[in-house]
């Protein structure tokens, strides 16, 4: 398996944690893992982006037009990072109101056979009383949708491994909520 994942958002949305989830998943699947993170001045309220490559690659950086999967935890960052996706890729955007996303861009994505899924991960995370886990809700959603090559059971055991003890229960709940919505909206 060779999979290239972009995780995008702004500081404080748990992008580095999400990146850790996929790193550990890669290790669990016996794959080589590479990636790249943002630190330093750009962390102060700026866009945060993490690259993750599972399988045999040389470089930790994903080039424009090469990513298989894009997770954006914020709407504007989704626009900024869509260019990373290859034709036929898939993106998951944390978005309160899916109808708000720019129509011309959606049409263009359709032409490139890029699957676009918007989901209100913030809303679902608030509902379970753990808004911090919106990142995990969105990842759960992607797994439930069947559009990504990650298995639910693998993700669960990774979550058990990387979650802080006090967060584990809520992280699991967040993941399952995401999975449920992802699989019911499955096409």
């Amino acid at each position, binding site marked *: 398996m060779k999979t290239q994942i972009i995780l995008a958002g702004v500081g404080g949305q748990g992008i580095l944690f999400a990146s850790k989830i996929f790193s550990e998943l890669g290790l669990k699947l016996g794959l080589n893992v590479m990636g790249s993170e943002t630190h330093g*001045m750009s962390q102060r309220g700026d866009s945060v982006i993490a690259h993750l490559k599972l399988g045999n690659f040389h470089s930790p950086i994903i080039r424009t037009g090469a990513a298989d999967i894009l997770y954006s935890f914020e709407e504007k960052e989704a626009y900024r990072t869509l260019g990373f996706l290859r034709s036929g890729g898939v993106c998951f955007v944390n978005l309160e109101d899916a109808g708000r996303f720019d129509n011309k861009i959606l049409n263009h994505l359709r032409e490139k056979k890029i699957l676009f899924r918007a989901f209100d991960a913030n809303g679902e995370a608030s509902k379970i009383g753990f808004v911090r886990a919106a990142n995990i809700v969105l990842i759960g959603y992607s797994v439930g949708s069947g559009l990504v090559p990650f298995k639910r059971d693998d993700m669960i055991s990774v979550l058990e491994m990387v979650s802080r003890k006090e967060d584990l229960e809520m992280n699991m709940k967040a993941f399952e909520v995401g999975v449920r919505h992802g699989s019911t909206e499955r096409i």
Partner: protein
Amino acid sequence: MIQEEETRVLLGNVAIARGIVESGCHVVTSYPGTPSSEIIPAVVEYKKELGLKTYIEWSSNEKVAFDNALAASLTGKRAAVAMKQVGLNVASDSLMSSAYTGVIGGLVIISCDDPGPHSSQTEQDSRFYAMFAKIPVYDPSTPQEAKDMVKEAFELSEEFQIPVLLRPTIRVSHAKQSIELLPPLELDRLANFEKDPERWAATPCYRLILHTKLNKILQGIQERFEKDTRWNYEVGSTGGASLGIITCSASFVALMDIFEELDVKDVGNILKIGTPYPLPQKKIRDFIERHEKVLVIEEPDTVIETQIIDKSKVLGRLTEHVPLQGELTPEVLYDILAKVLGELGLAQLKPISDPKLDKLIGDLDLPVRRPTLCAGCPERAAFFAIRKTFPKAIYPSDIGCYTLGLNLKAVDTVIDMGAGITLASGFYQAFHQDDKDIPIIATMGDSTFYHSGTASLLNAVYNNARFILVILDNEITAMTGMQPTPGLGITADGSQGRKIPLEELVKGCGIKWIRTIDPYEVNNLIKLLKEARKYTQKSDGGISVIIARHPCLIQYPDVCQEHLVEVDINEDCNGCMYCIDFFECPALRPNEKEDGVEIDRMLCIDCGVCVDVCPRGAILPTERRKDTHIR
């Protein structure tokens, strides 16, 4: 021993830390700076996890860090010193000299470069320092290679008795990779200093002898690097091809991915160089001979390209085939390759960008995010007060979170660590010479003051300069990821060191007027600034120093929980946007109709400072929290 071998995904800097630990290194020193800051905390973690005796120090600056590591090496121990690339400027005096004297125990210098730049004032190339000082340099492409190179660097350093540089770029330091952990080497070495004044205290005539020896050592290392195939090797056919590419660091691996994807192997070979100085010249010459044209791709500058003797076949920065500035991202590399392959008639690469998508996104006119001080940051309160009190002053500032006082237009200069004060004294002297008295308000953070503030300040006092210095003391080195300072007195591994209070240090520099205040008390700070200005104008006055002390909210969230002042904006708000233009708090934003301001409750931390900011008094503490209002 200690633990089983296992594979973990490590950040490049953590891999470097692991390499340091696996080498049995005894002493590790550093001053924090992006992209190097994660090395020391990772060594601390390994020390605790593995029960090691490693001495680890956050030093007060990079030169201090260098000298402390050097001394350990002179006692026969292994030592590493880590810093960002501009930190090596500060440590360069020690570097140049220690190249001549050499070392005993392995001394590895890690200087992390920042092409881009992402978080630095220059895009300088640390490898030039290796050439300048005449020491060998390793240039890793990946975290794994960085870890392995650290280990070889220690061995090379001991074999040739010379300091060795490791130069990771940000794309190595902040890359992640699955890496196999090996057990640490156990090196029982007791400190032993053998006196040798002709070496360790060499006067100029002995320095000439040391220089001669150094040149001989370099020859030996160059021969070693000529034979090396671990870091310096070819990819592709061993025969000739139309195009050869000589490359290194993060560019090498990015090019490898592009080559595999495009399947252009038949048109070109790659020579990967991991030891750019001393350059394996024969290897380079041989590679160039077998190719019609050779493209040199390295970053951020031209260390390899400059050293190539016969450049007649060489394309690179000097022929403008590679951009002279900026990061060599995969996109830039792709464009370089497309241009060169096209020019040589070898291949036509399809563009990878999607201009239609770019245009559609451009049309959205997305707001440009700029780095900004956090909501509730005490430094914002200080900058607001400074600008309000002296709207036409000159504001020399410095390197740290508070550089972002730029957004409040209360920062005019950011040159290098310490220059907040030295530029203030320089400005004073230049205007004073013309009998002009203008307010000069210098700002500097606590960590920067400990780094290089004292020499600047005592010079200013000594030479009768007059200005106001506001030391923004948030009791931590915040920008680089919360490293402790001498003011806090906590050392790198969390143990208690000795506190050095700023007040005492400032007094020791000869300052007679020192006041300490919490910048959240904006109105009192404004009063104090006016007094401070008067002192600079009195006949027997001088430099006045205000220590604006309030803990960083990210590091000490509990402190801000103690004094919550929840605020609301009432109907008196007329949408003048003064608070947004002059206070620039991310938690204040124009409302949808843009006829007033609203509070982003997700971002607001209830510091209550904006109550003193609104000229119409339209921002007020809410009824619910009035009881805890601190003013």
